[in-house]
């Protein structure tokens, strides 16, 4: 019993100190969320251990809710008119940054490991981006402009492409592994069909909830009820996504997207106004917990594969989005900067790596077991670096593009 009590006090301390560690890092020109993460790291499993694994498991619902709000706010920014003005470059950027991250990582990991299955698995994890860091930076610095809008769109939709690429590539990797160890195989098509179904269902669920939400919002009697209705729908979206193994990001993005595109501008503005006072709290909790999860003991496990993965992924994201922007005729500012806003990687990638490890450890082959063991530790280690690096480069990109007001 008494341990629960302390937990609430600990959270309170974390939020208060988080607020001020955010200020502190801001003094040296870093985004506040880096401060929240650092505090989380100090209080978390790596250093003081005030928050241990048991605590963190109990608090995962906070991370889910916060991610739900982040996704909702992304959807909310994606007006059709904005998307249209950004043009087809958005689609090309998403496809190119995702695919080139996959290919470059696969090639580099193959060069260091000499194993095609390992290379494909790591490649399949590379496209996943963590939107929360980028969104937090945009909101903190009140960035506005074409790069900010493009980042919202890319960071949001890229989750869908990442799921597809992962499903497909991981299935191929499994296929190769199975046939080389002489085990009868499933079909390759299912590797593509299942994630496609997942994406379509996520979008359908998001739209259904979104239409219901957008229908109800203008009919509320008082503005004071906006938080309750919004919170209720985001929780439903997050919970149903978890229940049916859908993408939490796509579902909640769908709710925000429908709102932004079917209701009056004034309604959207008042929803945003109400959210503005909650988002900072959610960001503190979210990044504090992310920091508390970071296990620095895993950093030495990085190894050569980890380095290859990071280099390949960063180069793929930056180069790929440059190419996509170039082919789509996007402006030079977008072309040169957008990749730097897409480097964050966190929960989604770790989740997918756990999936791989689960599946591969059930295969009766020594190689499969080795991959299952290495993929989680390596991705956990690289995520530490991407999670810290991502928001910093995002800020630099926005600054370079002149979208952060002084």
């Amino acid at each position, binding site marked *: 019993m*008494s341990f*629960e*009590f*302390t*937990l*609430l*006090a*600990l*959270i*309170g*301390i*974390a*939020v*208060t100190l*988080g*607020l001020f560690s955010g200020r502190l890092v801001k003094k040296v020109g870093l985004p506040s969320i880096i401060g929240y993460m650092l505090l989380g790291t100090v209080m978390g499993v790596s250093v003081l251990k005030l928050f241990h694994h048991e605590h963190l498991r109990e608090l995962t*619902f906070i991370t*889910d*809710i916060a991610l739900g709000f982040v996704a909702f706010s992304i959807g909310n920014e994606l007006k059709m008119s904005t998307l249209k003005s950004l043009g087809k470059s958005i689609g090309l950027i998403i496809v190119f940054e995702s695919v080139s991250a996959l290919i470059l990582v696969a090639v580099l990991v193959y060069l260091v490991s000499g194993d095609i299955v390992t290379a494909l698995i790591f490649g399949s994890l590379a496209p996943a981006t963590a939107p929360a860091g980028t969104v937090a930076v945009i909101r903190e610095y009140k960035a506005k402009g074409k790069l900010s809008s493009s980042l919202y769109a890319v960071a949001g939709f890229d989750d869908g492409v990442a799921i597809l690429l992962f499903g497909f590539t991981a299935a191929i990797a499994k296929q190769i592994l199975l046939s080389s160890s002489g085990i009868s195989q499933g079909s390759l098509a299912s590797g593509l069909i299942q994630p496609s179904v997942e994406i379509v269902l996520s979008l359908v669920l998001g739209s259904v909830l979104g239409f219901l939400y957008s229908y*109800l919002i203008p009919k*509320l*009697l*008082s*503005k*004071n*009820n*906006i*938080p*309750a*209705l919004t*919170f*209720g*729908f*985001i*929780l*439903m*979206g*997050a*919970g*149903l996504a*978890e*229940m049916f193994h859908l993408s939490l990001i796509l579902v909640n993005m769908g709710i925000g997207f429908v709102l932004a595109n079917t209701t009056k501008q004034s309604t959207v503005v008042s929803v945003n106004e*109400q959210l*503005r*006072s*909650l*988002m*900072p*709290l959610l960001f*503190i909790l979210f990044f504090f917990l992310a920091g508390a999860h970071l296990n620095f003991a895993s950093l030495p496990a990085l190894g050569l594969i980890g380095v290859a993965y990071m280099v390949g992924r960063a180069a793929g994201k930056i180069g790929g989005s440059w190419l996509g922007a170039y082919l789509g005729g996007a402006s030079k500012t977008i072309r040169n900067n957008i990749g730097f806003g897409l480097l964050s990687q966190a929960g989604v990638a770790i989740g997918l790596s756990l999936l791989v490890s689960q599946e591969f450890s059930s295969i009766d082959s020594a190689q499969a077991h080795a991959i299952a063991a290495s993929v989680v530790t390596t991705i956990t280690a690289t995520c530490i670096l991407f999670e810290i690096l991502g928001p910093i480069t995002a800020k630099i990109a926005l600054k370079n593009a002149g979208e952060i007001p002084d």
Partner: protein
Amino acid sequence: MSSLPLITLVGIATVLSLYMGRLVKKVNLPSLVGYMILGVVLGGSVLGVLSGENLHSLGFLTDVALGFVAFTIGSELNIRGLKKLGKGIIYIIIAESFAAFAVVTAGVWLLTKNMPMALIFGSLAPASAPAGTVAVIQEYGAKGTLTKALYAVVGFDDGLAIVIFGFANAAARNMLDPANSMSLLQGILHPAGEILLSLAAGGILGYIYTVLSRRLKPLTDIPSLTFGFVAVSIGISQWLHLSLILTSMMLGFVLTNTTPSIMVNKLLGQLRSWISFLFIPFFFLAGAHLDITSLPSLGILGVIYMLSRTAGLMGGAWLGAVAGASEPKIRKYLGFGILSQAGVAIGLSMLVLNEFTELGTPESVSIASTVITTITATCIIFEIVGPIGAKYALTRAGEIGREK
């Protein structure tokens, strides 16, 4: 059904509550009654969706909401405003608490001729639940002297309720088990220490909170800071067994009384819609906790408890107002606004259950089980009647403007 993840359930319950609240508003009841009804339907006594393990793991939400309610109360207690209410307010708090204690003790004694049991019921009577009253005030945007007085009474009477309970509980124990008697003085000193410590802890936290919040640059960070301090107050209260209500109340109290009111309004403006949002899970969880199957066990004892508690609170408040020469509308209506009883009373009766079962005499064990079942059942009624009474009082006093 049970595989539905908890967060989905909370999401659905939040949205449905909003509309249940609207429904009951059509028949002129405060929305929170609708939230509670929904909670009852989802809870253990009907559908059973929100019950047991689920409900237990959401306990923190109730605590956080109660902390914010207490914070709100504190922030409304401007000393200058309180002075305008005069000494009356102090008399009212003392009179309503002691009268409820005395009348219930007498009533239960007349019925059962059992002094320890009468004392225990009497000692539970002063405890009131502030959330219902505060929710009604906020929902209808009530303003005026009665509103101010209600804030003060439901906030501070928690302290007095704890002292009365400590004293009477000790007296009852001594009667049941003279061999292991504890001094009555200790029965008062211990809870009095608890209260002083709550006020001190809350005061220190409140001071730090105020200093920090005045310097906070973007106002949008105020909810984070407030949440942090409320959570710390709750955590410390639970850890040191202090009064959650008093500790969190002090946060708001120190802020209001050391900061220019324009600034306070700006800070609180950031919180307003989120506090009204917190009432929703608070009351549907309260509803889900209500075990309506316990209603039949009310019996004549429960009826006596309810009648004498109502009479004591209303009579006491009237008496206090007369003695302190308060305004007529406060004298006439304040008593209607303080009838809610919920979590604190149930918590205290759990304490009785633990202590008296430990005493181990047949009489003490039977008292303990009677107390917990009766209080659980009467709270159902008080939790629903209380807010309705509060709305009635505010309407009659003319402090509820036209519906916005």
